[in-house]
């Protein structure tokens, strides 16, 4: 018996709205269809209305978890357009926050993976330890989520000796705990039984479908912008690109834990070798006409911002390609022929950030399923007409 199971737009496994339409035969998935567009926010259009400085704080709000990734990716691009060279101390602090963000994102993901597999103890433990890095971020920037530490030409806050000591202390604790989680994640029989061999994605498929980040690295494809196109400080630092060759969810867990350990190493190096000097230089208000593509290795994979300037104090166009979008085609491939029980695990394994990747909406007639393209003014007219014909709203009455 074959029937459709709708996973989403509202589903306990999904923290954000997306629609995965699964055609299943018993417990086996035969076909997958992903529909996006439930959470479009019009950020790119909004960016054209705001000036270069305001946009830092706008793009930071593209994502709640990799907020610093988007802000840094944008700032890198604008600095290139402005031909600004931020002081090295500023860069070190900026990328220190990047690595701390990677740590918090990966710890969060480990917990989510545990929860999706029904391993709630793992979830509770990793999220407890995530608090350590969240506190460090709050200490450095004043905020837990949107750090707002970037500015054009550097960063906004400096580090003092006490803070440096606290960061190093936090890294020691976190390294010890992460090694324990590595042990659990790779050895606990019921957990490994759930994730080993699930969501297979061979290397040739990774290349063909342009997967990015830990998803690609878990299939043995060592793509990492930090290594292959070292930006800012990464050329001076010593770290390895973590890979695994099992091509499954287990590999993605292993890659992320290895990356955690690499990030601790990077943070320690950056704190120890923090150069003296200023943290920022003054940036001009306007930008010469030109265009730039900025690449950044976010926790989820390669993040790309395309920025076009027309000589004013506002961008003419900002295009954001979040890493999640690049991983959707691979997800469809991974889900096919899997079990229903594996859907949340496979989907969570790409660490989806759904509303980061929303760049369009589709208008679908609820009755017929017919799709259409409508001008904004028409849509507005329709809304007004509909509102006028709607019955008068009364106060809601709660039946007892």
């Amino acid at each position, binding site marked *: 018996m074959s029937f459709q199971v709708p996973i989403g737009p509202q589903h306990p496994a999904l923290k954000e709205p997306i629609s995965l339409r699964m055609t299943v035969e018993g417990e086996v998935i035969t076909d997958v269809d992903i529909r996006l567009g439930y959470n479009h926010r019009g950020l790119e259009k909004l960016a054209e209305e705001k000036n270069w400085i305001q946009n830092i704080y706008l793009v930071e709000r593209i994502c709640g978890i990799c907020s610093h990734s988007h802000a840094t990716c944008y700032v890198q691009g604008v600095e290139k357009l402005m031909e600004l060279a931020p002081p090295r101390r500023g860069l070190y602090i900026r990328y220190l926050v990047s690595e701390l963000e990677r740590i918090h994102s990966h710890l969060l993901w480990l917990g989510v993976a545990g929860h999706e597999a029904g391993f709630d103890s793992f979830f509770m433990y990793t999220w407890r330890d995530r608090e350590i890095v969240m506190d460090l971020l709050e200490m450095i920037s004043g905020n837990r989520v949107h750090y707002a530490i970037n500015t054009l030409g550097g960063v906004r806050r400096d580090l003092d000796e006490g803070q440096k000591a606290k960061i190093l202390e936090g890294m020691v604790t976190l390294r010890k705990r992460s090694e324990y989680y590595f042990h659990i994640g790779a050895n606990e029989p019921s957990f490994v039984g759930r994730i080993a061999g699930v969501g297979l994605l061979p290397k040739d498929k990774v290349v063909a479908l342009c997967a990015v980040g830990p998803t690609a690295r878990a299939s043995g494809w060592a793509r990492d912008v930090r290594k292959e196109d070292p930006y800012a400080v990464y050329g001076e630092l010593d770290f390895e690109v973590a890979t695994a060759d099992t091509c499954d969810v287990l590999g993605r867990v292993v890659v992320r834990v290895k990356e955690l350990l690499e990030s601790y190493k990077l943070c320690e190096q950056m704190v120890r070798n923090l150069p003296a000097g200023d943290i920022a230089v003054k940036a001009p208000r306007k930008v010469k006409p030109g265009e730039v593509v900025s690449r950044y290795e976010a926790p989820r994979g390669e993040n790309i911002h395309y920025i076009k300037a027309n000589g004013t104090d506002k961008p003419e166009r900002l295009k954001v390609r979040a890493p999640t979008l690049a991983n959707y085609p691979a997800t469809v491939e991974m889900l096919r022929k899997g079990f229903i*029980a594996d859907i949340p695990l496979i989907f969570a394994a790409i660490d989806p950030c759904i509303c980061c990747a929303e760049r369009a909406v589709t208008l679908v007639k609820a009755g017929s399923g017919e799709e259409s393209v409508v001008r904004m003014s028409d849509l507005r007219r329709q809304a007004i007409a509909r509102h006028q014909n709607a019955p008068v709203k009364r106060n809601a009455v709660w039946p007892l």
Partner: protein
Amino acid sequence: MAVVRTLLYLVVYPGLLFLFVYSTFCEWFDRKVYARLQNRMGPTHTGRFGLLQPIADFFKLMAKEDIVPEASDKRLFTVLPIIGLAVVSTAGLLLPVWNFDLANPGLTSFSGDIIVVLYLLSLPTLILFLAAWSSTNPFSTIGGARVLTMLFGYEVPLFLTILSPAILADSWRLAEIAAFYQAKPLLLLTNLLGFLVAVIAVQAKLERTPFDIPHAETEIVGGTFTEYSGKKLALFRLTFDIELVISSGLLATVFLGGFPGGAVVGFIHFVVKTLFVIFLLSLLRALTSRIRIDQVVSFAWKYLAPLAVLQLLVAILLKGLLS
């Protein structure tokens, strides 16, 4: 007078009221152990140490809006939670902790009551399947199919392991089995393997992690309970709590020497031993992740069933040696 006694027996102790209070206490204990193992506090606010939290949850659910889906079989959908509760409460009357006389079998303790308890503990599974099927939701339907698939995995090992101590004791009456092991406590050690298998099988029967597959929330939303809300869901949850108490009580009777020493001491035995079994179940719940339905069936038949047969062989051989 006899009528009043019977009524009190059914409604107050050890009937519904006692089962309600004790099962909510066991749920509190389970939640607290689970939370402490996860570095959390667990319930703290309602009542002292959060003891009243499960009762508060129950009454809150009772007061919630109760929705019956249009497409469901309405009569079946409504009546199933009540039947489930009735069935497990009936099983509760048969545990040999109260009101039995070894010499005179009565209505609550008779030869063959171990089979009746096992039967009554199997019924909730079928009721869950029917509930899932009658709610006609795709998630429920999948959940219902999973309930039945799992049943084929754990039921046989559970029966084999629970019946092998009975074979050794040469009785089908719970009170007599317990009395046999109270007389020869060393023989309990020979049933240790069976106890472990039975704990795992009971975990599966109660649908707790790693066997919470029929209502795995990240996969199939509420699974069997997706369409249930309000009073009906509250009754289902109570059913599971009582089933937890009865199953652990059954394991304690068969594998841990029952509840000797009259009304008061026997009752203390009952509390300590059931809490010990529930502690083991909570430990298992905290330490594992949910496995897949095919893994449950293969695990049950590759490991649990052979171990259960081994336990049966041990019991039979030992019985030959002893006689």
